């Protein structure tokens, strides 16, 4: 695989997406305002919760804001990089237009993921940086290179696990075209705005290793706060590698079920 060629095509796709977004500036403004409104709604929700209780599942108000910041960052990366491209897959399969992708001398998975990159989603990443920068000084938190590096590593692994899981879900499109099951996963992902510690231990186990929701937000946020069990710094990369390997294998295997029939 020629990595240089893939990197060049990726940057060309980013440039194309940027030009498209420039053409639809009103959409960009609407999307940013939507991010801000959604954030305002979540902040009001959290404020009402903390109006009633000082902490939830061991998380104070500013710790929860930090968690929200991490959530928005991962969501922004996920939506900017692969989600919207993969969301197009059911249409490609239904209409038979995946043919055009398969005949090109590039990885089909790569082509599908870059088919839609959206600069609107960068606004979520910017808001997330603001939220993290706002909440950290309000906490009893001492800067440590170890925590920061561990956080970046776990955050990277979390993003890979999220990519892999979503890829597996979308790959099932080759078997069932119109069930919109990805909506359930998106909904589950939204729920990671809530720390997993509020659940009973058995459910926490399920949300860590079976449906790995805890990996996406709670574990990275805990790492930054210096509250994570160090074992996860080893578990996270192994788990991420395993998820990526399985999801790519599943994609390659499932391609043979593509019927190339339009409907």
């Amino acid at each position, binding site marked *: 695989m020629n990595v240089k060629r893939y990197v060049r095509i990726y940057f060309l796709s980013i440039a194309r997406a940027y030009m498209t977004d420039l053409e639809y500036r*009103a959409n960009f403004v609407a999307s940013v*305002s939507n991010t801000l*409104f959604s954030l305002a709604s979540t902040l009001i929700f959290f404020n009402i919760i903390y109006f009633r*209780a000082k*902490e939830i*599942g061991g998380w104070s108000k500013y710790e929860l804001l930090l968690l929200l910041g991490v959530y928005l960052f991962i969501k922004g990366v996920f939506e900017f990089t692969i989600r919207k491209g993969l969301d197009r897959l059911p249409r490609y399969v239904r209409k038979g237009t995946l043919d055009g992708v398969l005949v090109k001398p590039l990885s089909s998975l790569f082509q599908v993921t870059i088919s839609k990159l959206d600069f609107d989603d960068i606004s979520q990443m910017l808001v997330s940086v603001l939220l993290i920068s706002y909440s950290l000084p309000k906490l009893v938190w001492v800067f440590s290179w170890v925590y920061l590096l561990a956080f970046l590593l776990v955050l990277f692994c979390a993003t890979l696990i999220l990519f892999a899981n979503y890829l597996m879900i979308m790959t099932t499109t080759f078997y*069932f075209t119109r069930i919109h099951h990805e909506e*359930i996963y998106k909904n589950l992902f939204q729920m990671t705005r809530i720390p997993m510690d509020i659940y009973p231990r058995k459910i926490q186990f399920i949300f860590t290793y079976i449906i790995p929701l805890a990996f996406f937000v709670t574990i990275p946020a805990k790492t930054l706060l210096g509250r994570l069990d160090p074992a996860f710094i080893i578990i996270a990369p192994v788990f991420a590698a395993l998820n990526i390997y399985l999801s790519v294998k599943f994609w390659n295997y499932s391609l043979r079920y593509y019927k190339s029939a339009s409907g």
Partner: protein
Amino acid sequence: MGRLHKKFLAVYKAWWQEELEYRVASFTWIINGLIGTLFIMVLWLATAKSSQGFPMNVPQIVTYFLLSVPVSRLTQVWSWNNMEEKVRSGEFTNFLLKPFSYLTFDLAENFARQSMRLLTLVPIIPVVYLFFRNDVQLTGSFQVWFLFILSIVLGLMVRFWYENVLGITTFWLIDVYGVSGIFGTLSGIFSGSAIPLAVMPPVLLSIAKLLPFRFFTSFPLEVVLGQVRGWDVFYGFLTGILWALVFGLIFKPLFGLGIKKYEAVGT
């Protein structure tokens, strides 16, 4: 009236067929609503556990959120989305040529989608009930249950008119993504689907009581759980009826202005 009835049924049947094709999507819609609600419920249970003097106890929280799933689904309409799609695609032109009102069509479309999707809810209710049966607390007289049903009908009316009035903005804006985000946020805060009115701080509570969003989910639940009683029930119904009337009355003139603005072009 008889002819209108026939036309309504014809549109209803057509949409029912369409919905039958997407019945798995209906199931996903129900499951999705249930998952979101269960997460929020757990969060409020954790809040109640960490708080002193929380206004709702465990059975009340569980009953509130489990009932909120069918209630919010029963009052749901897709009128704004329907109008947006038709105006954007230019398909709306067809409705200007048809021998019956756009609202008749929209109502039939909503009812068909609603009935198909509610059918998928039926097998889920007993499963969820079995799982939470120790915490579900359903009491109340016949009168309370009757008022509960009426409040759902009221919620459906308020939402139907509300969505259709807001749908008219599409004639001017075409892309209503931003506006729908604003109203979606307001609805998320004040409808009671995520935040029960009983736990709101006093200032927000007084605002929520005046807005139409309360009728989408909260008001029927307040009625059946006994969170509103006596004259408050009456004032609640009065506020809802007023909102339905206001939206219903401004719809026609606004719709007329919108049609004048309509350019009949689409993507």
